[in-house]
């Protein structure tokens, strides 16, 4: 991994999002208008294809670089399926399936959902597919099979998450994929787990931004003759939040470093659990610090907090991943836990 490349990507992404991901754009997106202009800029910058191999037209970077973009997208509450497209590009690339331009989504978003791939034809229903209506293509995983389809093959029923991001139902009936491949690596790290990874990455970014906003506000807002950030009660809760943000961030970093290895399930489960738990604390603390102004539609805290409340519940909430980890730890037995943990950093 190159730290230089990561910081370059981060700065470039921050600049690009700051320029294009405006309040008006977010509001239009929430009203149902896909921000094509923003997407085009992201695609032109090569961000959508950082995980696609170079000989397939991408930049052939790894998950630590993708993490930088996931976080930036989260920080700016960007209403585009960059995370899903990154993930789809990675899976298509490793299966040598040509990556189509434009946003690509992923399905299903719950394990054991009702999709079947029989004789190369896809049938069934996938619920809460991110940006299903806006993505031109969808990457579908069924068992160890991956398939790429045009979303025009599906009947789309729109819905949204709490932040107004599309979470649509896609119904397929004997649909013909553009390509199908066998991907045995999905049996060790599933699409569901990888979905949890990208959401955890976005959460880490949104956490960072909500902390930064709360700190800024605490330094600016004057009550009782001084900035509220001078009050110990406010300092203590923001310090607690900073710890949560740092922990979520560390967990996500560990998961992204491991993501390309055959068995990344443990670190991903830890990351989604830890980030989702921090999300609840961040929303509570950021809103409490901001007082009534943070509760208005006009003020730009809610694009972060409504996403955090949504994202923490997507691809498994903290209790879901905690239960997975608990069953794993208990199944191996008490004495095996410590050696397992230390082996992961050896």
């Amino acid at each position, binding site marked *: 991994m190159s730290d230089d490349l990561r910081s370059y990507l981060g700065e470039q992404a921050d600049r690009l999002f700051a320029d294009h991901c405006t309040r008006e754009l977010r509001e239009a997106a929430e009203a149902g208008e896909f921000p094509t202009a923003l997407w085009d800029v992201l695609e032109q910058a090569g961000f959508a294809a950082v995980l696609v191999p170079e000989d397939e037209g991408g930049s052939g970077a790894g998950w630590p670089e993708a993490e930088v973009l996931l976080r930036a997208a989260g920080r700016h509450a960007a209403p585009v399926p960059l995370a899903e497209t990154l993930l789809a590009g990675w899976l298509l690339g490793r299966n040598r399936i040509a990556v189509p331009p434009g946003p690509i989504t992923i399905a299903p978003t719950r394990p054991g959902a009702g999709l079947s791939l029989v004789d190369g034809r896809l049938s069934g229903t996938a619920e809460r597919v991110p940006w299903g209506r806006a993505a031109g293509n969808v990457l579908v995983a069924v068992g160890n099979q991956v398939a790429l389809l045009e979303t025009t093959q599906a009947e789309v029923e729109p819905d949204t998450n709490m932040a107004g991001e599309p979470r649509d139902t896609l119904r397929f009936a004997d649909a013909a994929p553009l390509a199908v491949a066998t991907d045995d690596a999905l049996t060790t790290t599933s699409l569901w787990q990888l979905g949890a990874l990208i959401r955890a990455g976005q959460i880490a970014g949104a956490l960072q931004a909500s*902390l930064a906003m709360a*700190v800024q506000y*605490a*330094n600016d807002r004057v009550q009782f003759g001084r900035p509220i*950030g*001078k009050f*110990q009660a*406010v*300092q*203590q809760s*923001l*310090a*607690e939040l*900073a*710890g*949560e*943000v*740092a*922990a979520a*961030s*560390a*967990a996500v*970093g*560990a998961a992204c*470093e491991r993501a390309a290895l055959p068995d990344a399930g*443990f*670190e991903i*489960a*830890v990351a989604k*659990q*830890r980030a989702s*738990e921090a999300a609840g604390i961040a929303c509570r603390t950021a809103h409490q610090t901001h007082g009534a102004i943070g509760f208005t539609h006009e003020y730009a805290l809610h694009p972060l907090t409504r996403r955090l409340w949504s994202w923490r519940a997507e691809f498994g909430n*903290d*209790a879901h*991943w*905690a*239960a*997975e*980890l*608990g*069953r*794993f*730890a*208990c*199944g191996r*037995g*008490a*004495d095996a*836990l*410590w050696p397992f*943990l*230390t082996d*992961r*950093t*050896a």
Partner: protein
Amino acid sequence: MNAFDFESVTLPASAEALRGEVREFLGRELGNYPPRKRAESWTGFDGAFSKKLGDAGWIGLTWPKQYGGHERSYLERYVVIEEMLAAGAPVAAHWIADRQSGPTLLRFGTEEQRQRVLPKIAAGDCFFCIGMSEPDSGSDLASIRSRATRTDNGWLLSGTKVWTSNAHNCHYMIGLFRSDPKAERKHDGISQFLVPLDTPGIQISPIPDLIGQHHFNQVVFDDVELPDTALIGEAGEGWRQVMAELAFERAGPERYLSTYQLLVEMIAEATQDPGERHAVAIGRTVAHLATLRRMSLSIAGQLQAGEDPALAGSIVKDLGNSFEQAMTGTAYDQFDVEPSFGSDGDLSQVLAFLTQVAPSFSLRGGTREILRGIIARGLGLR
């Protein structure tokens, strides 16, 4: 906000080789050591055990060889201490000397002090306690009133130190005294001293903790005469020196592993086929533990890179102490067990001990409130 980023560290093969040696040693030495004793973690005092560690070459690991050290990396040291903590080894006797007193002497001490004391520490023969808090000075450490008065050939110490863990079993204290009562700022005019605890005029008496255990002490200095050679570093520089010492005190894995034995007992109690609520409770604990370990290891990496881990250490200590305390709550909530020292059950015994000592976790080495104040300043507040 660099201190809020915890870069991943992958341990080198040399550290992992050392881990194997330490595990083998601990397996041999602690075979039947009971869970209730393991739960004492780094507060379990056993001078003979420390001596064995000294013989094995695992104390003063990072120190120069000329002072009895072993010139190994901070990452290797990290591995040794995390293995001790995970196993619940009784490391208290040498812990303070290895963690902070030795490093303080290496950094600020005189050549004579280093040569006199460090080889004995590294051999597992010399134990230290911390002389910071006083009856009226806890979190407000700079308000200390114990005095060091210059004499013709040294210093005269008077005053009272409290909460001095294991003073009754230690050879030396590094004590913080006010050496210049006329200094304008309370942070100035403070100095650190290397105090042999057998010096006449020192009276050590127990302050039993809430369970009735004796580890705390009150240490009274009644005109204790010390030579010039007792001064550590420069007179009046004690505050800066003690802040550096506290960074060592706050940065290690003992700040999140104090209740590891309780997790072990919870997993055992939940069986290999746990119910949903046990799985959720244990899994959440495992997720926090794995994350804290990554963060803590990152601090060892910072130390190795010569960086100052003071702020990062405060973040991990605050998170870690909250995690340790929450774990006793988790065990209580999720397992219908009455905590009791007389129980046949290990979970019950371990929970009885840790429930009662848990309040100290967010007090010792800097309270939660002090740490969060440091973190808030790091965020740019106040």
